[in-house]
């Protein structure tokens, strides 16, 4: 909000050097965003005025704060008018009725006769222009001038256009229409408070005047409105119509009820001088009950606790008095009368903030609170996830952070056929920023693969990324609990799941002169997933998963944790890679950690190091088509009756001399007896049993 220093100086000397003035304003709670020196010692200040301080949204209010902060005296506001006893009576010229006293507590008006509408005098036009307003004419500018000077919104009607010379403050009828000053025709309803004449609505109360009753070059007589409107009513109407004005901004934040007559008299005296009008005798209008005087108790000891420095009655009184608070002692406490312009001060703590502000936050020392308690991390799955991340980093995966929004088609394509057969219903935004960000992600993969593709497209062709973050889906049962105040404190009907995703493309490992380069494939990705989950204490296995639009059929696996499907990994289809603009192969994996971490965690424990030697034997096998490694390994262990302590696939081979679809597989089986050294006949015996079992059960033969 912009303020001219010369305008402020009409009310307070503001003699401090500019940067000191800015420092004091900032530490008083009116942050100076910019400060632009102008010719003649003037300056344009841009202040941030918080929404709880409507009293500072005008020159006089800022002057009041400066007076307090600089220890200077605030001049009284020139808000009284000497009336001409010979002037006609306003009551004879117009009439005001409030039909909605709950929404309009006060309507003051004056009649000004015989104005000559013309450009404003330079001093007024220049000031308005300096703070960014467009001067219109000497009448409209005068109402704006007083709004910016004193903070109270005003409106000037062309009296001749008001049917019946009458003002009625009423709700609009459904279907009633009004063309506002900006030329837009607006449809009104019963929730809209309007100013009407005898026939029709002529203004949106507290927001904007009507086109049909506005001041024009032919206007002679004026009715000036200075009223008080209900903040919520003004806010709702302004929101509904998408119309925010200087007036509605102030009424929404709480205007000063006692300011209506002051602002009205000030504008009338300006009009008399700058537009040549004759001010009719008397204010007309209607008033509800006066605002009750707000009296609050302030306990200095309470202020001492909240601020953290000892404060007595004198210190508190000295802090509050310059801001217009009337302070009286009452035993150990203080009785405070709140000035009408401070609509934000409603309870003791509001006064304590005033005290803190006036003392200055800089005067508050720092100390550490002595609250007992041990630190700890309560995030679900935290420790297990940290370990998984460590393993992923060791496997060369770097952490990515992507947006929670995504496009619904990409999300659906990558999420389709997710593990467990459960479909996740996506949660859509009501007001997305962009059409391709309309959906809360049900999978991390859309964002992660975009990041992968962006790297490749920028020339970084070897990419390994992971992300651990939340995915979202419509909750089957919204969370619900009750707040202490008895209100329903339920959360949003959305379920959030901690999810882990990996994406990889390009070389399996950084190029090195010792090794032949190799592209990353399913085994690299699977190994990373297995290590990460094992590190997190999960018992991992895999089984074939069907292909989808995104995942290649025949190169996709379910990831099982404790036998339960918790995720999926696989190669992306060529079509999906094309969609990402990728010419090279890419693979991805995603694990629902809510499932993976649901089961018991496998914790490390010690088994004595075996004292008896082990014997390793390699079995070169020809495995017919359709047999999985997992079933062979199980058969080997079963056949060896506990003697096979380890089974490894040490070589895999496919060649033309093998039967169609068959693969050569070398298993290294390590035999050991827990209590004695195995004789070589025993090992031979076990090996034979294994070979027989594989031949019988799976048609596996030894390779010659």
């Amino acid at each position, binding site marked *: 909000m912009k303020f001219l220093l010369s305008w402020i100086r009409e009310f307070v000397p503001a003699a401090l050097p500019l940067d000191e003035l800015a420092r004091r304003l900032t530490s008083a709670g009116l942050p100076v965003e910019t400060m632009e020196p102008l010719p003649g010692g003037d300056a344009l200040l841009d202040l941030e005025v918080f929404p709880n301080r409507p009293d500072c949204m005008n020159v006089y209010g800022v002057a009041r704060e400066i007076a307090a902060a600089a220890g200077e005296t605030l001049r009284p506001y020139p808000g009284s008018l000497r009336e001409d006893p010979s002037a006609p009576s306003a009551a004879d010229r117009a009439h005001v009725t409030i039909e909605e006293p709950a929404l309009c507590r006060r309507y003051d008006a004056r009649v000004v006769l015989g104005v000559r509408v013309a450009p404003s005098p330079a001093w007024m036009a220049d000031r308005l222009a300096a703070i960014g307003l467009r001067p219109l004419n000497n009448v409209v500018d005068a109402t704006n001038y007083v709004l910016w000077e004193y903070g109270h919104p005003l409106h000037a009607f062309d009296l001749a256009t008001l049917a019946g010379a009458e003002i009625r403050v009423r709700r609009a009828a459904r279907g009633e229409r009004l063309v506002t000053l900006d030329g837009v025709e607006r449809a009104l309803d019963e929730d809209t408070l309007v100013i009407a004449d005898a026939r029709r609505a002529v203004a949106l109360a507290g927001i904007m005047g009507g086109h049909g009753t506005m001041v024009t070059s032919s206007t002679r007589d004026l009715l000036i409105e200075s009223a008080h409107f209900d903040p919520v009513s003004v806010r709702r109407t302004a929101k509904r119509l998408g119309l925010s004005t200087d007036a509605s901004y102030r009424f929404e934040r709480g205007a000063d009820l006692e300011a209506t007559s002051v602002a009205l008299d000030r504008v009338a005296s300006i009009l008399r001088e700058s537009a040549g009008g004759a001010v009719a005798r008397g204010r007309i209008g209607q008033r509800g009950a006066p605002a009750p005087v707000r009296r609050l108790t302030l306990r200095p000891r309470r202020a001492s606790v909240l601020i953290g420095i000892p404060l007595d009655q004198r210190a508190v009184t000295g802090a509050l008095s310059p801001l217009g608070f009337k302070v009286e002692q009452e035993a150990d406490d203080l009785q405070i009368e709140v000035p009408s312009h401070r609509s934000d001060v409603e309870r003791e703590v509001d006064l304590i903030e005033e005290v803190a502000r006036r003392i200055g936050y800089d005067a508050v020392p*720092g100390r550490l609170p002595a609250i007992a308690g041990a630190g700890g991390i309560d995030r679900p799955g935290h420790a297990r996830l940290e370990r998984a991340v460590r393993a992923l980093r060791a496997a060369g995966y770097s952490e990515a952070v992507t947006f929670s929004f995504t496009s619904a088609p990409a999300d659906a394509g990558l999420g389709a056929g997710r593990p467990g057969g459960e479909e996740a219903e996506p949660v859509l935004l009501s007001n997305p920023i962009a059409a391709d960000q309309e959906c809360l992600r049900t999978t991390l993969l859309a964002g992660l693969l975009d990041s992968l593709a962006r790297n490749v497209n920028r020339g970084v062709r070897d990419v390994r990324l992971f992300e651990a973050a939340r995915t979202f889906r419509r909750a089957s049962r919204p969370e619900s609990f009750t707040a202490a105040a008895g209100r329903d404190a339920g959360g949003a009907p959305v379920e959030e799941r901690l999810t882990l995703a990996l994406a990889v493309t390009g070389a399996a490992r950084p190029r090195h002169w010792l090794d032949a380069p190799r592209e990353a494939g399913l085994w690299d990705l699977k190994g990373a997933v297995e290590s990460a989950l094992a590190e997190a204490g999960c018992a991992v296995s895999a089984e074939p998963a069907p292909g989808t639009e995104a995942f290649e059929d025949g190169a996709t696996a379910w990831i099982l944790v404790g036998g339960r499907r918790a995720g999926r990994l696989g190669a992306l289809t060529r079509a999906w890679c094309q969609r990402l603009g990728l010419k090279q192969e890419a693979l991805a994996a995603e694990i629902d950690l809510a499932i993976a971490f649901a089961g018991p965690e496998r914790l490390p424990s010690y088994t004595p190091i075996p004292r008896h030697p082990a014997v390793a034997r390699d079995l070169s096998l020809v495995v017919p088509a359709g047999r999985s490694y997992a079933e062979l390994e199980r058969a080997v262990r079963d056949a060896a009756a506990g003697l096979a302590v380890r089974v490894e696939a040490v070589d895999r081979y496919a060649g033309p001399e093998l039967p169609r679809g068959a693969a050569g597989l070398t298993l290294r089986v390590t035999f050991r007896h827990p209590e004695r050294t195995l004789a070589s006949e025993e090992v031979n015996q076990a090996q034979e049993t294994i070979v027989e079992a594989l031949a019988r059960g799976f048609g596996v033969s030894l390779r010659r």
Partner: protein
Amino acid sequence: MPIDNPLGELEKLREECLRRLAAARAAGGPAAIQEVRHDVLGRSRGRLTAFLKNLKEIPAEHRPLAGARANQIKQELESALAAAEAEASAAAASSARLDVTLPGVPAAPGTVHPLTIIRMEVEAIFLEMGYRVEDGPEAESDYLNFTALNIPADHPARDMQDTFYLQGGGLLRTHTSPVQIRTMLKTSPPLKIICPGRAYRRDASDATHSPIFHQVEGLAVDERIGLADLKGTLLEMSRRLFGERVRVRLRPSYFPFVEPGAEFDVSCFVCDGRGCRTCKRSGWIEMGGAGMVHPAVFEEVGYDAERWTGFAFGFGLDRLAMVRFDIDDIRLLFENDLRLLEQFRGGA
């Protein structure tokens, strides 16, 4: 085998031997030297060995002289062979020397995102001060995001944050402050918690704004907690983040759920407050909002607002990461360009 001229044979053997050794040395091959040794001094078939073995067949008059000379030559050849062998093995060692300046096989671990590095740093600071690290949902109800935080419906303070609303109800939290309410609803005071997390505001994206950003929320509640405790806590955190020399400044501000309310700044750790690019010449880095918990918030969660007081604060992790790592555009944090990410090797 009759030997006519044993001494002449001996001298011939010696000369031949030395000649072959010289040739082998010139060729530099340890194998050739080995061959000479084998031929001359080999235990079974060495010619000099055989000569010495057969000494008794030499006529008695020549025997003492031949024996002495043979042993003399043996010693001479032994030392010549040893020298040649040492030379050869030294040469071999020198040719097997590795070029240790070649790069090793990298373990090439992945990196942690700068936002995570900063988050973990902040968590470590507060864990050490005995804070619990809490968590809460990103999709929230209007009640927990606004109303319970003293921002009722139709309150102008709602304009301070543009909100994403969800079809089917709820919204994306505009700050991490709902976790204050969630924590207080399930915990009795005294307490001290932080909650790092993601928040959302419907801002247009530019170098300093992102519709998705990250905050750390802090809350401490006890009897007789005051603004001084807030200031001391923020100072402690800032010193650990930026170094012992930094100062903390509180400025009056307005957030409906705290009163007195403040914004907090840290003196610039780059220029020590003199003004530089990092602090936009102001000497101060704006960190976030803070204040004393508003009694209306305590009343909402059923705490006795007369007995308990507390402070709360919140600041942006993205901004902190940008300032600390000199990243000039917030959008870089969400692009995941490996050329950025890999600069954070060893960061955590």
